[in-house]
């Protein structure tokens, strides 16, 4: 028998793997794919924002880099968009090395503001960069030229690809969590000065966390571009992209392995269904419902839904015993 604490993650992945096949409805299948995509970027953000406690509001810069790398390679050289993913990851490393060291000297809110400013700057740069489509943006292949273009009418192939990436990211995060790095990051998150005084190489480990976090966020951006087939400065580098990652992670629980995934499972269908049900009225009621639910969760479970796990888990174990 697998021990219970191992069985949990396995069960989650098994359920995730079969969930979209339970419905033949293309719209729900698309929502499922979008859930996993959102979970990738929120889980990536979680590495630096959750474990290390560095609340970045600038992660859209990585998302945008990934999306633009994909569609630039297509637009300029005719390569399939997915070929841009490695390029986006390499670019994300370069960006991390450039923006990491100076922003890491800022603490708390100042770090958040610093990253926010950098992402806003990046958006303006892209708007004025003709080669990258400027304000008009870039589009992917209009029609699939070959299978490599990854253009499908059905969302299930996207779902499978996204899920593989998410599983890889979560496995890495899980390993990291139990390694020295995980302890260092949590120590940094709990109190940077204290961690430093205990000999934790704070700056270096924050940079490692940013490199991992940025790379996976860039990958999420590339996958987004492959699926949606279009990116412009707002949908790639817009502030809402960053905010969404933070909100999803915070809702599920920052600094926990499955928190961002839980957040995505709740928030993305909520966004889609409120828009489906109420968007057509054009009254903005979709936003009201969406905001209200976030407020309720914040009110009754401010640490995110992950805060409720131990309670439920204890209950479950008692029943099992």
């Amino acid at each position, binding site marked *: 028998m697998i021990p219970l*604490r191992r*069985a*949990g993650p396995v*069960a*989650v992945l098994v*359920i*995730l793997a079969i*969930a979209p096949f*339970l*419905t033949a*409805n*293309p*719209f*729900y299948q*698309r*929502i*499922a794919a*979008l*859930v996993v995509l959102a979970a990738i970027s929120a889980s990536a953000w979680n590495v630096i924002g959750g474990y290390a406690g560095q609340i970045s509001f600038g992660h859209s810069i990585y998302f945008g880099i990934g999306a633009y790398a994909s569609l630039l390679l297509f637009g300029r050289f005719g390569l399939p968009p997915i070929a841009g993913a490695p390029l986006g990851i390499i670019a994300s490393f370069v960006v991390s090395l450039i923006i990491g060291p100076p922003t890491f000297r800022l603490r708390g809110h100042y770090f958040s503001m610093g990253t926010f400013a950098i992402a806003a700057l990046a958006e303006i740069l892209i*708007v*004025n960069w003709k080669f990258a489509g*400027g*304000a*008009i*943006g870039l*589009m992917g292949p*209009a*029609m699939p030229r070959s299978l490599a273009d990854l253009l499908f*009418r059905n969302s299930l192939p996207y779902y499978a690809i996204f899920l593989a990436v998410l599983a890889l990211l979560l496995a890495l995060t899980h390993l990291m969590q139990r390694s020295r790095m995980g302890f260092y990051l949590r120590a940094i998150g709990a109190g940077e000065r204290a961690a430093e005084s205990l000999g934790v190489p704070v700056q270096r480990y924050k940079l490692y966390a940013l490199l991992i976090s940025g790379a996976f966020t860039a990958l999420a951006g590339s996958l*987004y571009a492959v699926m*949606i*087939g*279009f*990116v*412009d400065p707002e*949908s790639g580098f817009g502030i809402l992209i960053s905010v969404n990652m933070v909100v999803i992670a915070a809702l599920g629980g920052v600094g926990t392995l*499955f928190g961002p*995934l*839980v957040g995505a*499972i*709740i928030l993305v*269908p909520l966004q*889609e*269904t409120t*828009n*489906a*049900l109420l*968007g*057509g*009225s*054009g009254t*903005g009621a*979709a*936003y009201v419902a969406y905001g209200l639910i976030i407020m309720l969760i914040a009110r009754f479970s401010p640490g995110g*839904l992950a805060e*409720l*796990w131990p309670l*439920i*888990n204890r209950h*479950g174990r008692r029943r099992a015993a």
Partner: protein
Amino acid sequence: MSISRRGVLALPALAVLPALSEHVMAAETVSIGYIEALTGNAGAAGQSIKQGAELAVEIINTPHPDLAPLTLAKNAGLPNLGGATVALTWADNQGSPAVAASDALRLITQDHVVAMCGAYQSSCTLTSSAVAERYGIPYVAGESVAANLTGRGYKWFFRTTPYGPDFARLYLDFLADVAKSGRATGKIAVVHENTDYGTSVADSMVSTAAARGIKIAQRIAYNANGTDVSPQVLQLKEAQPDVVIFISYTSDSILYIKTFHTLGYRPPIVIGDDSGFSDPSFIKTVGPIAQGALNRSAFVPGKPDSITYKINALFKKRTGRDLDDTTARSMQGLFVLCDAINRAGSTKPEAIREALVKTDLPPGELMIGYEGVKFNAQGQNILAYSLMIQLQGESYVPVWPANQASAKLELPFKGWT
């Protein structure tokens, strides 16, 4: 762990919600999906389009013999489908290309629409029409103007509105005509805001002019959110162009006119590319100092007995506002689509597509100043066109081309007195 499992299980549960709201369509109803920017930055435009489209549906579904020969106005419903009525299912794109694509998928697979209209922002039209293409559902874009929408090799995409090159052609034709009267029009300055709208129209302007051997003398890009445009105006003042064409949003258009006034500079010809110059607040705030400003519009109410005048009156009765160019272009797109469905005599997507391909509407059957509606192989309406209108007093009046003008063109730009 069990909470996350519940989360997963909640997914199908949440997904059931929209299914409950799905209503069974009566057999005699033709369901058309309409994606618009109903909220967000462009929310006001999307809401106006919604009001316009609802008026168009009323005109189609109930008899309006006074509006004949406008397509489908005379009878109730679609005659070739036994008087079937048209019903619109709305979706809000929230200004996001990804949401627009979700909207399209939902309208097609949940609401089973037979055709679609939309989606205001060109970026949203691009992604939602890609979904329609994969599902083989006809898509008519009545208001999006980005050049890259047509030319994607799509079979199911049709655009009724004029776009960048058409506007450029309009301005250049107009200026060539003005030049015949001996006025200099050779030195053209294009001043545009630097996001997709301004950039794409300015690009079309430059390339269309180049094709005619005309070089745009000056091109100034600026940020529409700025609070001061005097550097740009001083640049113009120094270069002294014959014509200044603004591709601007509202607050910046107002700022330019105010700065002209402050600096005492009157370019001989001022053209505004719709948008900001057409905003009601533009006339209210700077109308008295923008006399003689030119603008484009495909919709002009015209004389009291005309179709356009009557439609404008109906719209005003509903909303208290005059019908604007964007709303009118969107309504025209819907009329063209419904006309095609009627000619197809069927709600089968392939039949509708074939009817759209064969569309050939004369100007008399339209509610807008196009030269007709006829699509090329890319799905672009090759007869799309606009009129030049001029601010004279408190409103714009059509001044060019001569056969549609109701007032005399007054040059040079007077501004203020």
